[in-house]
């Protein structure tokens, strides 16, 4: 009677396509791009396209980490301010002690990784939702950014670093651009694409990626089969703070000075990029390509509105609408993903099989 397994019934390509997390975002990105190409003549040049990509990369890099973390079932509200913290730590430390910027950049990295570790450790140790823990870190960092900058410089602006030791090399790494056939290409765009490809590869192809989906889907079940849940989650928090540090370095070496209050609010942009890209808020579902497309939608709209000559204030309203639409689309895609293949034999009928 128990007529074993029904040979894998491959579902039609169309269904498999529609069940992918990033499908909604890809369609939306296409529509939005075409819309602004039609509405804003200034938008139709290679130069603007690369400006859009640059804009996308500044959000997209950290959003990759936030997306991975969300797939792993956690949030990080401190991801916006840590970018500023990273830059401030580097510049003020070097300015105060008169040391090479390289040393400062590495110290800043260590500090950011430490914050990520603390976020993860506290969440895992206390069982308090990451939303609350990182809300706390967010306020601590925001206050410390402003407070310490005032102590060191007497204002809310960090000292100019462009004449300090090590500047040219670091600027080359974090904030260079080059000319490609008449358009300016920022290095961060390449970093963004590279990080996205790496994250996508890790998620889909490696053991760690498998664990990220598992701990986001059900941490208890993953723990019961021995998946190192604590280690993996702390690693994800540290990935977010690493990418935050990276963008912090870019911002610092591009502008040479920082406003201590910057970065606040960006944590929501990262989350929006991840959700618009098909990441499920409840964890266990999503992918890195989707997050990249989510960030691209952000870049396209924020600049498209400017190029079209509209009041930029509408941008936030638009983002809100996108988020709501994305949540609805995700819900639909998810239900599709779980119903594409109907059970061949329902348990009640199994014996006739």
């Amino acid at each position, binding site marked *: 009677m*128990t*007529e*074993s*397994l*029904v*040979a*894998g*019934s491959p579902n039609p390509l169309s269904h498999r396509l529609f069940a992918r997390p990033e499908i909604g975002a890809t369609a939306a990105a296409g529509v939005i791009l075409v819309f602004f190409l039609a509405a804003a003549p200034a938008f139709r040049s290679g130069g603007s396209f690369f400006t859009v990509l640059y804009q996308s990369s500044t959000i997209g890099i950290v959003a990759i980490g936030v997306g991975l973390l969300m797939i792993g079932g956690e949030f990080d509200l401190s991801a916006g301010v840590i970018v500023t913290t990273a830059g401030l730590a580097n510049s003020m430390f070097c300015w105060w002690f008169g040391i090479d910027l390289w040393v400062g950049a590495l110290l800043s990295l260590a500090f950011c990784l430490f914050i990520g570790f603390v976020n993860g450790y506290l969440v895992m140790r206390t069982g308090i939702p990451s939303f609350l823990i990182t809300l706390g870190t967010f306020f601590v960092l925001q206050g410390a950014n402003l407070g310490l900058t005032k102590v060191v410089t007497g204002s809310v602006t960090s000292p100019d670093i462009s004449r300090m030791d090590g500047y040219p090399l670091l600027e080359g790494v974090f904030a260079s651009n080059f000319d490609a056939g008449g358009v300016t290409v920022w290095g961060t765009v390449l970093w963004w694409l590279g990080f996205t490809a790496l994250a996508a590869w*890790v998620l889909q*192809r*490696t*053991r*760690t*990626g*498998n*664990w990220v*989906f*598992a701990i*986001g*889907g*059900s941490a*208890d*079940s*993953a*723990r*019961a*089969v*021995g*998946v190192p849940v604590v280690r993996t989650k702390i690693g994800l928090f540290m990935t977010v703070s690493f990418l935050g540090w990276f963008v912090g370095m870019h911002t610092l070496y591009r502008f040479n000075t920082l406003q201590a209050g910057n970065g606040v609010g960006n944590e929501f942009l990262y989350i929006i990029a991840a959700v618009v890209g098909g990441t499920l808020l409840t964890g*266990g*579902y999503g992918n890195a390509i989707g997050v990249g497309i989510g960030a691209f939608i952000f870049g396209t709209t924020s600049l498209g509105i400017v190029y079209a000559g509209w009041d930029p204030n509408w941008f936030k309203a638009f983002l809100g609408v996108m988020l709501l639409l994305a949540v609805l689309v995700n819900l639909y895609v998810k239900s599709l*993903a*779980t*119903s594409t*293949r109907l*059970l*061949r*034999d*329902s*348990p*009640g009928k*199994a*014996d006739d*099989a």
Partner: protein
Amino acid sequence: MTATTVTHDLVSVENVSLSFGSVRALRDVSLTLQPGEITALVGDNGAGKSTLVRCLSGIHRPDDGTVRFDGQPAHFSTPEDARNAGIETVHQNLALVEDLTVWQNLFLNREIVHGFGPLAILDKRAMKREAQRMVSTLAVNVPSVTSTVRRLSGGQRQAVSICRAAGFSSKLVIMDEPTAALGVQETERVEKLITKLREDGHAVLLISHNFAQVMRLADHVWVMRAGRCVAGRRIAQTTGEEIVALITGAQQS
């Protein structure tokens, strides 16, 4: 090593105690499991059955006493240790990740990979093939190893959990109330799986509230009451009535 006629206990639990704060979940529990047998563990809710099982599968560590597995003292500090030693557990709450596919669940933390470390590359094709083999060996009825667990019925999920426990050359498969949430037909299928496990040479520790099931499947039964292991009987030499009396305390061991 030559064949030996001396049979040793597969598991021996000796004077194990465990407290959660003021709750003494296990008090001086001693029992043994024989290789190749289905051993049942029965007792009222809260008697300590799940807690004992979690000591065997590396989730809890006893405060006191020792657990021997295959003759060796077993100090499992993680579920990973217990699995490596050859103890697989089908937990009461099923312990599958619903958003992962059947094959991903079967191979979770047992991934077939190329390379080492956290960036070891998954061999998905091999895992799917192997998963297919595992489910068909046990004649498990699931639609496809590439479907997500969310889409499976309770019985199918339980079958996948058992399948995972039976794979990976485990010596002991522990099942905590595997049929509690199932319908009649699904229960029947899972019972067939359990006897199949014994035929294949696995020892099984079965926690069940269903006395008829215990009498049907098990070779030996241990009875727990209020954190203690109060009696052990060969199934052939006991009755359902006696077991009930032992559980309620109407009969003292």
